[in-house]
């Protein structure tokens, strides 16, 4: 069965937010919202969960710290201990103060880049990928709400359109996908 996707366009973020609130209260499932900037407070309304990228950043940072510690211990203490300025490199703990700057920098390096890469991969935004916003104006001043008929079995497409029209939309568009 062909699925219908309805795109309702708004010209104000607050109107869209209120519209989404009303629709969700009536039991409509909003599949996606495309906007030119983050609409604060839309996520809980349409059921977008908070991202866990922060936890990933912490784990990447921990990895960086571990790598830096293991690396510097191996280079400076185990593999080739040097006596620099009368301070022999015999134990990691005693020499650790000199290793703090690089441990810190490497932690930040791994946390930041690890998180950024995960962000790109999870978003599926990578150089050369095609844009998926339904209308080019959604990166300017238009806000689009996407509603799929397959998500809303209890409403017909016409009912959904009527409901949407009550929320102050400026344009309505739909597409059939297989």
């Amino acid at each position, binding site marked *: 069965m062909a699925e219908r996707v309805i795109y309702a366009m708004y010209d*104000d973020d*607050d*109107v869209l937010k*209120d519209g989404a609130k009303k629709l969700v209260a009536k039991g409509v499932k909003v599949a*996606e*919202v*495309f*906007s*030119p*900037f*983050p*609409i*604060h*407070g839309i*996520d809980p309304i349409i059921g*977008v969960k*908070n*991202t866990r*990228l*922060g936890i990933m950043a912490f784990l990447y*940072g921990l990895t960086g710290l571990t790598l830096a510690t293991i690396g*510097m211990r191996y*280079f*400076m203490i185990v*593999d*080739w201990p*040097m006596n*620099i300025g009368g301070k022999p490199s015999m134990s990691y703990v005693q020499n650790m103060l*000199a*290793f703090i*700057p*690089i441990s*810190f*920098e*490497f932690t*930040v*390096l791994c*946390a*930041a880049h690890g*998180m*950024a890469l995960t*962000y*790109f991969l*999870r*978003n599926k*935004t*990578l*150089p*050369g*990928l*095609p*844009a*998926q*916003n339904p209308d*080019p104006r*959604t*990166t*300017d*001043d238009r806000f689009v709400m996407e509603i799929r008929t397959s998500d809303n079995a209890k409403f017909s497409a016409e009912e959904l359109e009527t409901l949407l029209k009550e929320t*102050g939309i400026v344009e309505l568009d739909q597409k059939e996908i297989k």
Partner: protein
Amino acid sequence: MHKEAAIREPLILGHKTYHDITEDICRPIEDKAPRMWYVLFSIALIIGLYGVGCILYLLGTGIGVWGLNKTINWAWDITNFVWWVGIGHAGTLISAVLLLFRQRWRMAINRSAEAMTIFAVFMAGIFPLIHMGRLWMGYFVMPIPNQFGSLWVNFNSPLLWDVFAISTYLSVGFVFWYIGLIPDFATLRDRAKKPVSKKMYSILSFGWSGRAKHWNRFELVSLVLAGLATPLVFSVHSIVSFDFATSVIPGWHTTIFPPYFVAGAVFSGFAMVQTLMLIMRKAMNLEAYIHTRHVEYMNIVIMVTGSIVGTAYITELFISWYSGVEYEGYAFFNRATGPYWWAYWSMMTCNVISPQLMWFRKLRRSLLFTFIISIVVNIGMWFERYVIIVTSLHRDYLPSAWSMHYPSHIDIGIYVGTIGLFFVFFLLFARFFPVLPIAELKTILKIAGESYKNAPDTHHGHDDHGHGSHGHAAADHTAHVEAPEAGEIASEGSSEEEQSNDENNSGEETSSEEEK
């Protein structure tokens, strides 16, 4: 929505709509470049190419072409390095530290300040690299297994810390900047008419579509990167200062160096931001977004960090006497009264006295005065590094080895050349990249835009407590008069009011960040 007090000056002047913001920022990129751009770009390119020529000559001949000698074995190279790294501190400070402090005014300047940071750190990076003499051996600074009996780099050395600090700073700063640029590239992509620019911006925008989940991740990633970049900003210049502070040269061996260098870096970085922004806002018609209030905020930062630097100078001077170390005492006495007195007193005048003038409201709100001071500060900060480095070295332990430093024309050529290259990069940035964060500015339009803010004439006083319904009433008021878009909100009045009240209950301070 979190309302700002009516008494605060709006951050976006005029009656802008979302579309106006897009237009104002995209038009200078889409239109033909003005003649002035070509003139400036040619001048910068010629100076930059001259610098590249000097660098090539240096690489071909050896670093003996610098004006160094046996006594003064470190001079303009490290001075320029520290100067550029210092300038490269403002961007990340603005975007990271001010993001954590929820300063909305940063949104007008963070994009170009970050670009400036990245280009300044590029310029800084040139100096240690060419200082190696054999650029192609640059990979020696990395801890890689090698054929010399696995001799590792010295992890106890601040010079190696620098390698890690600067490369981390540069790459993290770049990622932070680029992640913010992606949604704005998407805006440019969707507006582009010509096939070439459409293709370029679609590659640069990584296929960004503005989905709700992506924005959710975007905001968290920005916040976490800001959290990571904040200690990074402070660590980088601290580590740069360790290059000196961990040595035993009188005048360098000082524990005050890390905080003093960091304050100096922010000081010079903001001065450079002022220099660039004051020109850019005029040339690209961005006066509505970067106006007197922004300049004033930055001047306050300059004033505060300038005072920290001044305090540090005087503390250092006092301690050199109070410590009773005669070598230390002599180093400072010699700085102020020796053959380099002119450098010392230029530094004192430019860095200690000039920022104090910013206490006067009239002066710190004067754009011309700010522009002059911003250049004076950067001259002063260059002298600071020159004074620290050269005057500490030029009179060493044997009076027979005492010497003076005279820069060669290659020294001068490379320094001036990096300024040229810096402007080449910055002008290219201003020509092809969105110089203001379009998406972020739109998020503050309803909070701090003039047409949405309570009109001060009619709504004095009673809006100060920032209650949602009052804020809304004011938006309603202006809507009928000027802003057509505000009318939309007005018609949805009741529910928005409800929303504002909900958020006000959760506490005014936290609500803006919670929404993020």
